[in-house]
């Protein structure tokens, strides 16, 4: 149901919170930011779990024993987005991390949205909305600059693509999505522990 969707609930709570805080800007608790983080992290975990299942189903059906002898795998369409690949680099970025997350989510909206039957496309969209709310709150609380505000518009640019080669039966696509969803989940955790470390880090 519409109301059972955690991202929607999260948005509703955030909207209400923003409304209240706009009326009384002083004394709004930071705890709600930690709550928001928890919600989006849970959502990203679900999304990653779904992507793993999709990939696993594909593998079990087609059983590819891909043998990239002397070759690297095909690039993902998100490979152009620079993402931190180790702990130190990830901890070094805070603002950039939020930007990376949003970029990834925006990039995946297009290929997954094309297949409306899949729940994962909607999940990507909702997660992106949730992360946008988190970023706005962080900016409101002074934790972040305005660098990423360009990504917050709902119609943020997806990578230019005609969408023709989006073949969800493509093993590489599933593999890439599984990896990127894992990145998003991990980055959100790191972001939370940098922003509100006293809550469960």
């Amino acid at each position: 149901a519409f109301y059972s969707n955690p991202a929607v609930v999260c948005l509703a709570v955030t909207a209400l919170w923003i409304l209240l805080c706009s009326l009384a800007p002083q004394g709004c608790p930071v705890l709600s930011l930690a709550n928001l983080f928890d919600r989006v992290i849970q959502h990203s975990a679900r999304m990653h779990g779904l992507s793993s299942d999709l990939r696993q189903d594909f593998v079990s059906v087609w059983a590819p024993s891909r043998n990239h002898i002397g070759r690297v795998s095909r690039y993902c369409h998100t490979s152009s987005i620079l993402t931190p690949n180790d702990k130190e680099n990830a901890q070094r970025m805070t603002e950039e991390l939020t930007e990376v997350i949003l970029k990834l989510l925006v990039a995946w909206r297009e290929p997954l949205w094309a297949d409306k039957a899949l729940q994962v496309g909607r999940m990507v969209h909702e997660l992106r909305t949730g992360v946008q709310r988190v970023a706005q709150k962080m900016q409101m609380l002074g934790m972040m600059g305005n660098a990423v505000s360009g990504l917050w518009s709902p119609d943020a640019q997806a990578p230019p693509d005609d969408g023709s080669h989006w073949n969800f039966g493509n093993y590489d696509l599933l593999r890439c999505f599984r990896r990127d969803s894992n990145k998003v989940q991990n980055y959100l955790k790191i972001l939370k522990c940098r922003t509100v470390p006293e809550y469960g880090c």
Partner: protein
Amino acid sequence: MWFMKKKGLWLIVLNVNNNSPPGKPVLKQCHSPDKEIFTCWWEPNAHDGEDTTYRLLYEKELTIGILECPDYHTAGKNSCFFDKNHTSIWVDYFLTVVAINAFGNTTSDVYKIDVVDIVKPNPPENVTLWLELCEDIPTIHVTWNSFNIGTKCGWITPKYQLRFKKVDSKWNYVGEQTQFSIYSASPGKLYIVQVQCALDNGAWSEWSNTTFIQVPRSESKQHIWILVSFSAILLFAAVCIMFIKKKRYTNKCCLFHSIQQWLLPPVPGPRIKGIDVQLLKNGRSHEATRALLINHGFPWNGMPWKNQAEEYLLVRDDNKLLNEDQKHTHGKMISNNCHSKPNINNQLNVHNSMNFKEEKTILDDLVDTSQSELVNELNYVNTMKTDTAFSIDTIYVRNVKPVENSRYVDIQRQDVDMEYSTVREPMLFPEKQNKVINRQQERLPYDYTRVKEVNGDMLLLQDPSFRNNTQNTDYINPTPLHPVTEKVHECAESLNDGYVDNPHTHNVK
């Protein structure tokens, strides 16, 4: 390749295996304990010689060129250790191992990994158990070293699983906790605990080394449980017996009375042969006592118990044994064996082989002998609460004590609150009887009242010679008593609501 010297000739004996390139090695596994470093192991071919060397070469996604393992030694033989500088997450590695010897080299298959998929931590260390006793309730607390390095910044999220068991039982699994407590541990048992962990959604580690703890015994608990279980068994047995006997009690059907009758087997009320209860009730005690005087010396005969049993079961007008219906109505078969269910129709059950010690033992089982206020050597007949001659009191039997060479049981009575009850037994009309009961020629304790049978609304009257000595009080002064009582039904089972109704001893005119 090895050399052999034989007759001056150097023979070079070539091992066939060493004459060829090495066999194909196999990459077995790669693991990362913390998602920051990882190690890979390979297995050389079994036929490879000692001089075969191995090199691990790899390619990395988003990196051009072939790289070689940075560290062959840290993780042991046939391994490659990748430190932090060489580890990238969410990047595909394509690994190959090359076996090289003098004759060539052999390359293994490509082994593709992504470090995020090969995370398997080491088992938790320093698993500690400690026991807490809170009001004799033992609780076991389990702690262990937790992941700290990558956890604080959110890089990894550890989760733990714990399992514990008592020796010789199954494992209990508990998950997703950072510490654990086993509440209400069983005293006296040995507990075994193991912990394992996983990072993010990766593989579970091996179980930690087993840790033991012995819970001390709780002495008080044992005693309490012994008491409780014993009491429960007794209660259950009491209820069962009560239900079994319930059908025998037609007059009083209330629960308490049933329990009372079971616990305190009724002493058969005195029945004096030759006394017509109706006469007494009608107030014509004169005639009743006259009959008593006639019969007071009726002898006990030496008949076996069995015959007497028959005799006393005769009802009304005939000498036949009570049939089943009458048994239910009137109760009981006299039986020497108090534990067996009386069977009126079966005379064979009745025997006189039992000696009185057995009787006493049995009776002691039936009769509550635990009262501390036992009055040994009762010396009075129970008194009535009212002055009316016809109200009858109940005797609570205590400490039934047999008398030597007697077929009867002396009943020691105790002055307790009496409960009014009537004994409804078939009245024995002396004129119907042809048998005479011999009286025991023995010295009786002064203070005993011997009763033979509870029979109807009978009054126990003392020997007329005592009349002058007794008032409306208990019989206290020991005077020779010539009881005109009859045989007592010793067994509680043998009576209906058979509390002995001994009348208040008062002047009988």
